[in-house]
């Protein structure tokens, strides 16, 4: 039933789609800044899966394949997600210290 499914791009793109949609839903519905941040992580991972899947679509089985761009970009996504985690936690800590609350709907001092 599943024979050859690993050599088809569809299942990877389907996984990426599901990650993106659930991440977007998490961002839109969570009432906790940390929850919103977890949704951002899901969306970033969806993009990274797409990069690696299209790398494998373009990859040559020869040893000196020049098509490594997808892996490089996924690596940059992982690194930037790490620093994003640090900055997001710093902001959450600061907001929690000031407001005793990290509900994004309740923190509205910057609302225009």
């Amino acid at each position, binding site marked *: 039933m599943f024979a050859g499914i690993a050599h*088809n791009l569809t299942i990877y793109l389907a996984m990426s789609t599901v990650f993106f949609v659930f991440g977007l839903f998490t961002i839109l519905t969570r009432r906790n800044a940390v929850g919103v941040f977890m949704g951002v992580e899901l969306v970033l991972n969806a993009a990274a899966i797409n990069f690696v899947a299209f790398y494998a679509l373009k990859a040559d089985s020869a040893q000196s394949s020049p098509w490594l761009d997808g892996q490089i970009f996924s690596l940059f996504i992982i690194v930037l997600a790490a620093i994003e985690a640090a900055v997001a936690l710093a902001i959450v800590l600061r907001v929690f210290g000031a407001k005793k609350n990290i509900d994004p709907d309740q923190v509205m001092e910057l609302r225009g």
Partner: protein
Amino acid sequence: MSFLDFFVVFCFLGGVVCSAVVALHPNILYAAVALIGSLLAVAGVYASLGADFLAAAQLIIYVGGVIVVILFAVMMSESIYKRRFLDGVKKMFLPTILSIALMLGMFKLLVSTNWGELRIPNYENTTIRIGQALTGPYALIFEYVAIVLLFGLIGAIVVARPNILKKDQDGGNS
């Protein structure tokens, strides 16, 4: 059905279930633990696509670093065990419709397109080639990411320290 097919299907199902728990579970601690599962599934997909260095980096940086930071923030937030972290049904209406429409549209596009055959490389070690690429054609982006990391860390430290402004104000008053 080879082992690779089984493994990819296993990662797909695990990732879908775990990301659904992340999106839908009302308790944020459970959602954070389920995020570990979905990141592990992504690492499995990387490994089955022949990106071994990336799978290791995902395991070390995401599952080892980012998840710890997220769990720390979750433990710090108040009322973990109250079921208050999801909105009421009223405010979930529009996001649900948007998500379902987006998922159906993307799946339709995905099924109706002929993507061609994947040529998964023979699971050779990609670490050498990634290192050569990072110091060769991608050196500028590599340095740029390093600068972003440095200033991001400095900014995170400055933002997280609450006493800097207070001390300045006290010094000005006295």
